[in-house]
């Protein structure tokens, strides 16, 4: 149905509408521009409250909360460095997210790849510790994050004993078919870097003895490595 023409509207109504529009624009123009305020990361709600709020959809809620946490450093008009975040609260959030959706990779990826990259060794250690703790709860699913944590411990924290602990746990607990050989070989290279060729040789010998290395090229490479370690260990023994 066609509308009536504009002339059907009383002039007073048009005038009043125009005046009110002008008033609205004037009012908004007179208000100060919004300023950015950095907001501190609040503690997460309890797991029970979140389960209740999820209305039976904890996976979706965990995903949306992970996105919110991921974007927390980018607040409207302001950018906060990760290092400025409260890491105690971050850990609480990551724990909560994993509680809602234990099969999600998101919290562990954020811990090991985002929050562990800050130039603050204490905060890095908090995230590595979280990754290690969560790895132990489900090693076959979470092994890749511990492998990354071992690399951070070795190359960024230069804490070889910590890297060795992670690498050895990886070797010991992650036993699924999807675990690549390089992950179980990590302790060998860390031991070598620590100046422990004898221990590295024993680790590598044990790995070769299991027969799990079936690729001929890889077997050849690792056997060569074993022989080098053996000669290095022998030299050390002779020097003593």
């Amino acid at each position, binding site marked *: 149905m066609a509308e009536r023409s504009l002339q059907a509207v009383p002039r007073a109504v048009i005038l009043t509408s125009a005046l009110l529009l002008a008033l609205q624009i004037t009012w908004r123009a007179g208000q100060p521009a919004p300023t950015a305020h950095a907001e501190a990361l609040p503690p997460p709600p309890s797991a029970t409250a979140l*389960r209740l709020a999820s209305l039976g959809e904890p*996976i979706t809620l965990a995903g949306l909360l992970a*996105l919110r946490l991921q974007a927390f450093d980018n607040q409207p008009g302001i950018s906060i460095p990760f290092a400025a975040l409260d890491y105690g609260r971050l850990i609480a959030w990551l724990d909560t997210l994993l509680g809602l959706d234990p099969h*999600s990779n998101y919290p562990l990826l954020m811990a090991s*790849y985002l929050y562990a990259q800050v130039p603050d060794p204490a905060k890095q250690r908090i995230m590595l510790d979280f990754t290690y703790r969560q790895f132990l709860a489900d090693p076959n699913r979470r092994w890749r994050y511990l492998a990354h944590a071992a690399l951070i411990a070795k190359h960024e924290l230069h804490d070889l004993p910590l890297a060795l602990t992670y690498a050895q746990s990886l070797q010991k607990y992650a036993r699924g078919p999807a675990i690549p050989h390089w992950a179980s070989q990590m302790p060998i290279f860390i031991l070598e870097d620590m100046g422990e060729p004898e221990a590295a040789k024993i680790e590598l010998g044990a790995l070769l003895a299991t027969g799990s290395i079936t690729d001929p090229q890889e077997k050849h490479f690792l056997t060569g490595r074993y022989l080098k370690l053996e000669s290095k260990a022998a030299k050390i023994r002779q020097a003593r």
Partner: protein
Amino acid sequence: MRKILAIARFTLLEAARSRLLWLVLSAVGLLMAASFFIHELAITDSQRLQLAFLATGLRAASALIAAAFIISTLQREFNDQGPALLLALDLPRSHYVLGKILGLGLTAMLIALVCALPLALFAPGAAWRLWTASLLLEAGMVAAISVFCGISLRGTAAGLMLTLGFYILAKSLATLQLISHASLDAASLSHRHMTGLLDGLALLLPRLDQFAQTRWLVENLHAAPALSALAAQALVFVALVTSAAIFDMYRKNL
């Protein structure tokens, strides 16, 4: 039976001739767009997150659209004195309610099916089929409770609020019960009353959190025996609500 089927057929025709399909398709389009946005935002698990968001959103949208359509249709009919006109013919009140529940139930299931279709692009086949089948059962229950509210209450807003209240409570009641039973203050009188109330409500309401679980889609679970239990629950609940709607219809002054 012919009369019931005739009412159901005209109810379905009315739904087909309204702009309901466009509304459903718009909701699906919007949620799909939002899910792709979420997919782009995520740094890992992007497919999983997109699927979970889309499944949750489409599930809620199908329930909300179906409830709003059913309640507004019934309210308009009662305001126009349509049922009074129909009942002046040789038609028992129970047949009118049964015909409406059948027609509107099928409409709600078609809405649910349209909402479930896009998920077939992202979810594994067997898990998607199980999820869709249980979403159709849920749609049937939402339709039944909406018809009950549409007949029993005056006003679209009141009917819609009660239906949404039922939906939210039925989805969260199991968690509420767990919280209530695990409370440290279990000995106090008020707590015992509240626990009793929740346990009583749990006997009346279906556990909607067990229907169309997002977990099935993202973790590719398809336990066939679960569906028969869900179907039995849906059947019992729809029958109960239908009888309550018939009861109210017989008491209603038209």
